[in-house]
């Protein structure tokens, strides 16, 4: 059955949406390699109008569709139970929600503020007016985020301390093998990698080594994605 993932499109085909990356990694984790990726732009969301809402990612699997990255992960786990587990058990599924909530705390406002201007520059040019208006309502002038970011990065790295400790002890959040919890956190790192040259992590950080492992998964699937060259 044909699978399609509708994801956010950006400038020069950068596909940077962190939630879409959760779903992309989840699909590959389940061994589903042959899916179509369809970019959706802020200015025209008609491709996903069938889902009755206007946000990506949206997964279409044969005659079924699911929106929201969390629901997509649950759908994949329930629909393909014989393939590599994303959660394993009900506890695994429930506890992944904590990691999702923790990741949002990392993302907003700290990481969002650090990468605001990079994000703007990678929005598709025809979407930028909409994006600027939308973001400036919430965050103020985009230009105010263009200054030196090093202090903010150093402060942000401290927020990673629990992750750093865990990944100093085990290879993945899922234990010895990657699981959906890893893709939740990785989505934010992949978003950053797609749009920014900024070195978020020091190479000696266990989180850096973990990110390298994630980039290597599925024949370097995430590593080979279009991103800003460093």
């Amino acid at each position, binding site marked *: 059955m044909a699978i399609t993932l509708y994801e956010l499109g950006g400038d020069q085909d950068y596909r940077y949406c962190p939630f879409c990356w959760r779903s992309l990694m989840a699909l590959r984790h389940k061994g589903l390699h042959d899916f179509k990726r369809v970019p959706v732009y802020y200015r025209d969301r008609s491709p996903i109008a069938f889902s009755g809402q206007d946000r990506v990612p949206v997964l279409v699997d044969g005659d079924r569709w699911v929106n929201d990255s969390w629901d997509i992960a649950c759908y994949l786990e329930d629909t393909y139970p014989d393939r590599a*587990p*994303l*959660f*394993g*058990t*009900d*506890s*695994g*599924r*429930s*506890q*992944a*929600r*904590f*990691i999702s*909530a*923790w990741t*949002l*705390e990392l993302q907003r406002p700290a990481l969002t503020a650090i990468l605001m201007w990079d994000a703007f520059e990678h929005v598709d040019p025809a979407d930028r007016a909409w994006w600027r208006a939308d973001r400036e309502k919430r965050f103020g002038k985009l230009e105010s985020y263009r200054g030196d970011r090093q202090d903010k990065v150093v*402060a942000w790295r*401290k*927020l990673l*301390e*629990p*992750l750093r*400790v*865990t990944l100093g*002890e*085990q290879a*993945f*959040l*899922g*234990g*010895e*093998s990657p*699981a959906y*919890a890893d893709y939740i956190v990785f989505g934010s790192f992949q978003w950053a990698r797609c749009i920014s040259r900024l070195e978020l992590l020091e190479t000696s950080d266990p989180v850096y080594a973990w990110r390298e492992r994630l980039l290597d998964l599925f024949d370097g699937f995430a590593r080979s994605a279009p991103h800003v060259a460093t």
Partner: protein
Amino acid sequence: MVIQLYELAGKGDVKLSPHCWKSVYALSHKQLAFERVGVKFLEKERIAFSGQKLMPILRDGESVVCDSWAIARYLEQTYPERPSLFGGAIGMGETRFINDWTNKVQIFAFRRLFIRDAYDHVDPEEQAHYRATREARFSQSQEQVRSGRPVNKNDVAPPEDGYGGAYGNTLEEMQADRDTRIHEVRRLLEPVRVVAASQPYLAGGQPGYADYSVLGPFIWAKSVSRFRLLEADDPIHAWRDRMFRLFDGLGHATGHPV
């Protein structure tokens, strides 16, 4: 021989360690009978058999296990036919992260809210020791005074301005601004709040070790302090109440009402 759990204890045998509470709940979850052995700060010769100085320590027949996380893993491996603490390999990996979050964020943020209250619950003969070691370890100048002596790796303070800010210099100063500090601490609990609002326990429909990790600091708090950590309408409050009711209301029966 019945299983024994050695726990850090103070005046009137009140238990003084969040990590020990994690192990108490893990043992209860596994439906194991066990004896709780309180050990005061300066009674370390009583745990010399373990080859180190930190608690909790589990003694199960010939096995001696130190460190609350190692104890949880030991119990899961040794008693696999009893209710699972982790829910499989992925569940264990995730639980480790939640436990590390507890150790690095929650416990650090909580400690200074009632570190002076805890002093009142330390055995009077050990209060001077408690004050000297805690002020050395957690004061703003702790980087300068830390001198390579063994400290609990879970007790090493995170960055000075991380997780609720730097501690003060004395126990009194550390606790003094808690009425303003509490708002930041409640905000740090946001991941727990989000999950507690959508499901009964962190582990889902039933509690697991992830819940006991986060519960440990709450019971540690009420053991020594009446300070109000949570608002009544906070989803974490309802989760905590469910947790307090487990195992014949052990949490409610411990320490001060909150």
